[in-house]
């Protein structure tokens, strides 16, 4: 059919662009004077090794945050089969809580004198408020819609997202909030395995890894986790097995919310600015990450986050710049969405496979 031919054309076209861009980039690295390397972009000289490593690290640390948010999307999709569009807002609530708490800590000097304690405290607070938001959201907006057609809860979640954004705007005002600086001993550059890493990014990676490990333990090793997996597989059978489905769903939301809260804090520490709109783009990108990794698949969500983050930071310079596109850094977000379209065109079940119950797979 015409549509299929068109889609094949799009696929071939996109792959060709990527391959040409990559080849031109590689050629540039070896021989910048080569006509093919200069074909579209005569000024380009490729990247130095340090630049490339820097891109990789920033992609990794940003990607790990996407991964943390993506876990919430993935778990809710696995259990309830709908996209919780408002999950990005849960993340924003975490970041906002972190800002308020850290701002207060800085005001009374604790931020400098006892940073680690402050960090633990703001993470606990952010996790609390994010979890609270997620759980209330489930109770008020999603529970009554448990059995309605798939698009209804999605539309509801768009409304919830809108509401939370503007509620936070009303409470805290439209100004951009900036996190206090990290203490010098933590944020200074370090060199690990020839990689130059800012301490902040190292902290982000460490906390993300720790929370991922915690989540893995909960889901795979505890009874609650077992219940969650059972409910994701088949709600009815799970309830026949004596699992309290409602409670498990609330737990799912809570755990997803907690992860988003941690992600929010890390976001705040890394980019140091939060507004009421902070949740939107990371939210959509995290969903992309969840799809890239295969929705319902928790390891996949984390891996998807990291690959999306890396793609987003590397692809503009490695693929688009050799193709002669000016101002590539503006196209970061466009790249993320293109990755989503690409994955859905080539492998709709994600890189690591979906884990959904049979009814949700339709």
């Amino acid at each position: 059919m015409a549509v299929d031919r068109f889609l094949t054309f799009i696929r071939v076209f996109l792959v060709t662009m990527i391959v040409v861009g990559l080849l031109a980039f590689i050629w540039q690295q070896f021989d910048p004077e080569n006509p093919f390397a200069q074909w579209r972009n005569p000024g380009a000289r490729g990247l130095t090794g340090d630049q490339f490593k820097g891109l990789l690290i920033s992609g990794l640390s940003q990607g790990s945050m996407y991964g943390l948010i993506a876990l919430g999307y993935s778990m809710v999709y696995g259990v309830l089969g709908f996209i919780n569009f408002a999950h990005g807002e849960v993340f924003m609530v975490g970041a906002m809580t972190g800002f308020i708490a850290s701002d207060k800590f800085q005001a009374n000097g604790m931020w400098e004198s006892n940073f680690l304690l402050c960090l633990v405290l703001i993470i606990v607070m952010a996790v609390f408020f994010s979890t609270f938001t997620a759980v209330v959201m489930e109770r008020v907006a999603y529970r009554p819609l448990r059995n309605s057609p798939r698009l209804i809860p999605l539309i509801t979640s768009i409304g919830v997202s809108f509401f939370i954004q503007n509620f936070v705007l009303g409470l805290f005002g439209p100004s951009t909030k900036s996190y206090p600086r990290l203490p010098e001993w933590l944020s200074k550059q370090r060199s690990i395995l020839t990689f130059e890493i800012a301490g902040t990014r190292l902290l982000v990676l460490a906390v993300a890894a720790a929370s991922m490990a915690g989540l893995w333990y909960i889901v795979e090793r505890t009874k609650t986790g077992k219940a969650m997996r059972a409910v994701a597989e088949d709600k009815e059978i799970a309830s026949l097995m004596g699992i309290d489905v409602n409670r498990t769903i609330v737990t799912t939301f809570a755990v997803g919310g907690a992860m988003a809260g941690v992600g929010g804090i890390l976001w705040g520490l890394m980019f140091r600015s939060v507004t009421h709109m902070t949740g939107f783009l990371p939210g959509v990108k995290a969903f992309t990450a969840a799809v890239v990794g295969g929705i319902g698949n928790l390891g996949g969500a984390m891996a998807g986050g990291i690959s999306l983050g890396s793609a987003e930071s590397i692809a503009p310079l490695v693929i688009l710049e050799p193709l002669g596109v000016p101002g590539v850094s503006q196209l970061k977000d466009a790249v993320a969405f293109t990755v989503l379209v690409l994955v859905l065109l080539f492998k709709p079940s994600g890189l690591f496979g979906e884990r959904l119950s049979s009814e949700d797979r339709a």
Partner: protein
Amino acid sequence: MSTLTAPMPSSALDQDWKKVLRWGLICGGALIALCLVGMPVELDRREIIERYLSLGYVSVVLVPIAIGWVSASQVVLEGFESRKQGLFDLVTGLVVGVIGGGLLSLLMVALDSWNLRDPLVNWSPKLFRFLTYENGMGFGAGAWIVTCGVLGLAGASLHVMPRAVRRIVGIVTLGLLSLSVLEEAVSDVSEGFGLEWLTDLIYAKKGGLTLTSTIVVGAVMVVIAALTNGRVKAVTNRYRDMEGVERQKASIILFAVVAVLCIVLPMFLGKIMNELLANVGLFLLLALGLNIVVGLAGLLDLGYVAFFAVGGYTTAVLTSPNSPWFAPELHFGFSLIFVVIFAIIVGLVIGAPVIRMRGDYLAIVTLGFGEIIRLLFMSDWLGPYFGGAQGITNVPGVDLGFATVKGTDPRSVFYLVLFFCVIAIYVSWRLQASRLGRAWMAIREDEQVAEAMGINTVSAKLMAFVVGAVLAAFSGAVLVAKVGSVFPTSFMILISIIILVVVIVGGMGNIAGVMVGSFVLIGVLGGPKQPGLLQEFQNFKLLIYGMLLVFMMLKRPEGLVPSARRSRELHQDEFLQDAWLKGDKPGIDDDADDEDAAPVPVGDGGGEEE
């Protein structure tokens, strides 16, 4: 069938205290949240009844009434005889209100003793003065506990009143509120008709109704409400029951009245009202397009703004002399041809990859496309062609030979928008009943079954995308001609979502519903940047949009003016159960024709079923 009776409480104090406490806490929480968001203080500037009541107090007062009503309502189970409501429910409402008022007083104490201004921007002495009526702590706290209690009681008492009384109370309250709130519109209209003396009589000089006019108008409304009791419903019922030629005749008369009103009314209106109508029309055009994509075909397109942008940019490039790359300076009419062509191309390009995805992936991917298109228009890459962040300015208006449609003359813009809206309405009306329209509805209900029935789902879905894209592109073209410039920031995702709210609140899949939705939401609350009649709500309208969307999805997913078929889809279980309870049916075995047996739900707007 034997009727069962719900359990009766033995006395008025035999309450389910846990439930009452919960609702009380919800009431208090809602009141505190409302205050901290800053709505009451900001709305306090607008008077409803001169010197006695401002919109700020109305916004606070509505909360206990609503929650009192909800807390006192009982779950009516099918087949059970419901308990008669009385003193018991009044006590519930009263207690809920008192708890809410108590929590509000706690907020007052907190406001007085701590300063949390730093994170909470609305934690101000202004709020304290507002809450205490500038009369000190004790008075304020006592007054709010009493008023909230009374209001909760009032909310609950709505359940107890006879139906007719409740209707009168509702009409009078709503009528007075809207008369006062729509002051600007009413004075503008009456000025056009030379009735200034009437508005001078009703409204106070500084805005708001005067006390005497409130009483007089209220009394008039009571009379009107009592007189029309039941008649309005009878007329609509008669219209609904009409058949064939008779109905056609009635429809034509109705249509003619609306048409004459649309053509004549703007001549009597001032600039502000015409501007408002033009905005409503622009969004109506968008909403009609989205209604085809979401309402008829069931494809949740969150990147609808992309088509809006394509229409806008095509017009700007082709008509403006300031277009940086290619400036043929065509006439608006000529450029429309290209607008249609590009809209079709973009509709196909965006539609083709997403068409086979499942519904929710489609939503996110289209959202991605909407963002990609905006980012591309903004980027340095396409900057040389589309002006980047600076946009394209100096777009000429529409030269019609005898007049020029320009943003400075909102009346002419309104007529231009009206022209496109009429086309859009005609197209969607004809499409609904066509083969294609029925194919869309079949796809919406069940895609696999539709495919099995021989519908080419791929081409039908693509057609939905294309038709929706063309309508949105028209809207974009008119917007650009109206504003005279185009910037990437005019095409935020926000617009897609607001249009979605309009379609959903109005009623998915129903032309009349979409019209009602855009008039009520865009006209009263305003669009993303365009102010509506309630300019005071400017800062809160997005909050209200979000709340409305959630509320509608929970309580009335079929919208204010539902399409009969859509609401049957959404409430299928209930219809089946109703039919079963009535004993109309032997059982589940003839599920096949439940479409015919299911009772038609409330309000079949516009009669698009035939």
